[in-house]
């Protein structure tokens, strides 16, 4: 048996034991997606995978915007050995820290990744851990690399992707739970609590402002998407957009589209649903900002087929970024941003 195999086996045995203890201790209550982080000594469970937690990871590779920003927010910038695939400019407070990082515009190959000798891969999305990309989390563990997917994107099984996200896990509470778990894992509990407190305060402030002022049936419908050759590519039900819009006092106009986060819909579908707001989520460049949506906003405003849309006639087609619809440390700000857009009368 190779040492790594032995470690993995030991890890599994330990995790089984810990799980049994946990189950016994918390036989009733507590959602399965938020295991009590304080008691996690040897392993912490993430998306049904037990992540070894005996020693804080020292060499972390962060893939995608949410993971990169989460790492900086938790104060482990100096433990990053590489970062990859930003969708937009990083949050202002992390710009300096990110500027010093080695950065790949695309995901590196597995070999390239391993050349950094990481002991941990933190990913903002689930597609990384598939056979088509860097490999499943189990296969990475065999190489001595532990891994983490931000929980609102948990696939039902290691190696799977968006198709298997459980919509019930797509919550802001799961973002907090992740930060708490990662804080424990990296031995940065205080920092994690600070971040969570800040996010909770932002979301709470929005909730306070909305409280009693927006009736359930008056919530505006919001479409987050961008024009495509097919019509539009929009955020569906299992996307974190749905949670962000919900917390901001709106309804995702495409919440009923399930099975995947992104859906290609026909222009006629958009006309039929007639969303009150359209947020154009430009994507995928480290220097991108919502201002880059200008061209696509113009395209929507000038499209004769869309001339009757409430969002078009009311001038409510706004710039947004794909990064802002992702689950992560910027999600609370995204909630405030969306709330400010769709309830501009309440948020002066």
């Amino acid at each position, binding site marked *: 048996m190779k040492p790594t195999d032995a470690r993995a086996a030991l890890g599994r045995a330990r995790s089984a034991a810990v799980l049994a203890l946990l189950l016994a201790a918390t036989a009733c209550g507590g959602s399965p997606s938020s295991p009590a982080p304080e008691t996690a000594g040897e392993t912490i469970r993430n998306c049904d995978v037990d992540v070894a937690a005996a020693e804080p990871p020292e060499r972390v590779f962060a893939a995608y915007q949410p993971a990169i920003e989460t790492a900086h927010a938790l104060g482990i910038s100096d433990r990053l050995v590489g970062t990859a*695939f930003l969708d937009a400019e990083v949050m202002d407070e992390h710009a300096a820290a990110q500027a010093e990082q080695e950065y790949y*515009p*695309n995901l590196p190959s597995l070999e390239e990744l391993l050349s950094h000798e990481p002991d941990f891969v933190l990913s903002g999305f689930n597609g990384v851990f598939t056979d088509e990309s860097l490999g499943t989390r189990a296969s990475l563990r065999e190489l001595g690399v532990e891994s983490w997917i931000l929980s609102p994107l948990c696939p039902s099984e290691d190696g799977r992707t968006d198709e298997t996200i459980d919509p019930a896990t797509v919550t802001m509470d799961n973002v907090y739970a992740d930060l708490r778990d990662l804080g424990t894992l990296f031995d940065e509990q205080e920092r994690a609590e600070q971040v969570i407190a800040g996010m909770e305060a932002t979301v709470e402030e929005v909730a306070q402002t909305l409280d009693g002022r927006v009736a359930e049936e008056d919530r505006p419908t919001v479409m987050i998407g961008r024009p*495509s*050759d*097919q*019509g539009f*590519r929009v955020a569906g039900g299992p996307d974190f957009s749905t949670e962000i819009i919900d917390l901001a006092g709106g309804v995702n106009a495409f919440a009923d*589209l399930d099975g995947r986060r*992104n*859906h*290609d*819909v*026909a*222009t*006629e*579908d958009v*006309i*039929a649903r*007639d969303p009150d707001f359209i947020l154009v989520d430009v*994507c*995928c*460049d480290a220097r991108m900002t919502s201002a880059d949506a200008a*061209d696509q906003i113009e395209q929507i405003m000038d*499209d*004769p*087929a*869309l*001339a*009757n849309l409430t969002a078009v006639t009311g001038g409510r087609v706004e710039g947004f970024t794909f990064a802002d619809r992702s689950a992560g440390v910027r999600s609370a700000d995204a909630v405030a941003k969306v709330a400010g857009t769709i309830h501009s009368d309440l948020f002066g």
Partner: protein
Amino acid sequence: MADRVAERPLSPAPAEPHRKPRPPSGGSGLLSGPGARSIGLMAALLVLAGALLASVLVGYQQLSVADVYIAYAGFTGSDTDLVVRHLRVPRTLAGLAVGAALGVSGVLVQGVTRNPLGDPGILGINAGAALAAVLAISVLGVSALLGYVAFAFLGAAAAACAVYAVGSLGPDGAGPVRLALAGAAISALLGSLTSAIILRDRASLDEYRFWVVGSLAGADGAALLQALPFLTAGLVLAVALARPLNAVALGDELARSLGTRLWLVRGASALAVVLLAGTATAAAGPIGFVGVAVPHIARALVGPDHRWVLPWSAVLAPVLLLVADVVGRVVARPEELQVGIVTALVGAPFFILLVRRRRAAGL
């Protein structure tokens, strides 16, 4: 005769001394005789009219003929009016134009290369258009539809020229086999370049999918109007080529002895194919199957005479494309399947049925 040519489609057909070397005609095809073919063509036109109507009426919301009438006669700017005028009708007209262009260019390519698997793709048209468009988007940052359509058209022309140039190297000039091989090689080269760019690019998967699987969903009236002169020129050229192509079908030597200038026929065909298929690809992305299958279906029905095969293909190809597009709108609701995916799904059963009944009709 049709069967004999089909068995050795790539070799020059030896002359048949006992038969007058006029264009192949009569006898072959399910519809024999000009009367049956003409009546059949009328019937096919009615089917096309039905497909056009279905394409306008069927979709995310079902429309009635009255809705369509009102959209033009009593336009009020309602949602339905906008859907009819700016989405359904342009999309339907695009299906008609793209379908006819693909069908006719398929006949031309198969006729001039005498390759039963010939389609515009074999001249590198699709690959050239796709690569040029992808380059325009990723390198030059062209975003407007009209912008990269122009690039796609140029790419199609450049690829066809390259294929023709490579196919003409050597002492014998551009023979059918050489053209087919050069086309396959250059298509593969261009295709892998496109893939390399797409895979390297970040936001790629959505933006470029159009250039991998064709679609009519983005059809736009203004772009169609711009494409019209090119399509018309291509169709006129195709009509003029019908007789010379019949001669070419007899084999190079016999065609030459009949006074056919082969280089002129090939050059004119290539030009017509670039005009037709280049515009079709620029407007709807690469759509396979239609260009290969429809000429065979037409030949199975009316025999090998290009004077019949061309009009029949021009009618049947849009039928196939429009029906495929309507099916694509309905089967995956509320999303849509791109027509490029559905064409083979819809067309293959007919294709197989006809080919089995007729054996591959001669070229």
